[in-house]
């Protein structure tokens, strides 16, 4: 029978469509099947902690480090990165487009009390957003700041409906660009860099983890073949992910 490897990953990775390109070559050569469980970052890590998956792929560096420090995960690899962008209405009421760096972009939004929809769900994106507010020396609070507590796509839609701003990863924005009138108003700052890491669940802690196969999978993800697949992946003609 084919072996199954369980991979917990964030919804955005799964939704980008990359995995359906990236995984099949590995599955074929290793005669296995990778069961992708797409959940929030926090929950993905929790699934790793409880040993219900074999491999975790997320983008929240501090949480990943803690996961490894607590002994739940081993062998973290940098797989790829993409970037975040700030989205806003075409009219750009806060004039974010005039800013050059992300810190002043965030500060402008706060100054104008322009509607900003936050993920509010402790996801990788939400952690990054909080980091950006700190960098801009702003404590977001008030009617203009909506904490939605939802997935990325839904938050983009909400921000569109409310004619507000939001922070999104580029992949999800591209997927939703036909469904919203929001445009990119700020991008390219080095602080918007978004690395994805892959971690194997510690087989010492969870003996049933398929470490053999997991290790091969990790090796595959950093192999030249995988790199070619990642950089070659296009959506609406745009490249979504980059490798170091």
């Amino acid at each position, binding site marked *: 029978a084919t072996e199954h490897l369980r991979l917990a990953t964030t919804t955005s990775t799964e939704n980008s469509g990359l995995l359906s390109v990236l995984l099949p070559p590995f599955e074929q050569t290793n005669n296995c099947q990778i069961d992708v469980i797409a*959940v*929030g*970052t*926090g*929950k*993905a*890590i*929790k699934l790793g902690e409880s040993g219900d998956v074999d491999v975790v792929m997320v983008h929240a560096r501090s949480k990943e480090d803690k996961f490894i420090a607590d002994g739940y995960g081993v062998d973290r690899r940098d797989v790829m990165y993409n970037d975040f962008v700030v989205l806003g209405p075409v009219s750009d009421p806060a004039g974010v487009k005039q800013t050059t760096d992300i810190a002043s972009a965030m500060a402008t939004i706060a100054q104008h009390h322009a509607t900003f929809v936050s993920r*509010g*769900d*402790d*996801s990788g994106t939400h952690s990054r957003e909080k980091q950006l507010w700190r960098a801009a020396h702003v404590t977001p609070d008030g009617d203009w700041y*909506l*904490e*939605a*507590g*939802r997935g990325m796509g*839904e938050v983009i839609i*909400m921000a*569109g*409906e*409310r004619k507000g701003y939001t922070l999104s990863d580029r992949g999800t924005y591209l997927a939703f660009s036909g469904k919203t009138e929001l445009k990119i108003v700020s991008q390219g700052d080095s602080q918007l860099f978004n690395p994805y890491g892959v971690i194997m669940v510690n087989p010492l802690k969870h003996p049933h983890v398929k470490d053999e196969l997991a290790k091969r999978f990790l090796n595959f993800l950093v192999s030249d073949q995988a790199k070619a697949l990642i950089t070659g992946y296009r959506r609406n003609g745009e490249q979504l992910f980059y490798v170091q």
Partner: protein
Amino acid sequence: MDYLLESIRAAIELIFAFDQDIQRVVWTSLYTSFCAIALSATLAVPVGVALGLTQFRGRRIVITLLNTLMALPTVVVGLVLFGLFSRQGPLGNLGLLFTPIAMIAGQVVLATPIISNYVLAAVEGCDSRIINTALTLGATPLQANIQLIKEIRFGVMAAIIAGFGRVIGEVGVAMMLGGNIRNSTRTMTTAIALETSKGEFAFGLALGIVLLSVALFVNLFLNLLQQR
């Protein structure tokens, strides 16, 4: 398993602390559910009674469709109403999306088939002499139907309780049409979903226990109403 115990402790703490966020969330859940059930019952009880009492061609088809609507997934209701309420949609300029009103509308759609099916079953199971007895004692057809509803009040109450359970416990509509906005449209269920997606299982479960306690109180109250 640990987190089950942990969550019970957390739930007790939550209930006793009862901080403002929780209060707000409980209140939003309760009042949207109540409004939804009141509207839905007004709609669904007459539908159930009418379907139970009248014979017409295609009646079984209508009933089967109503049965099928009980399988409506919350996401689908959310999607369709989203299409209505969004800026692009026909009701867009009312600006109802991401407000409690949109949530209530979605919950009405969810509860109505449940309540009417329940009432229909109660009417089909009830004594066939009720209507004639009321009529011969001088009731108008409307009064006779009201008397029928009184006679099957146990079934009607069960229908309302089932509908209430459905809407207070559902998450899809509240999430998609309410938007889970903190201090505004966040309900107990969307808060639970949020905590769960964060991996805060214990806190999510604790909120679940709060939800069930609230539902228990509401049901105790409905029960008292019924026995009166």
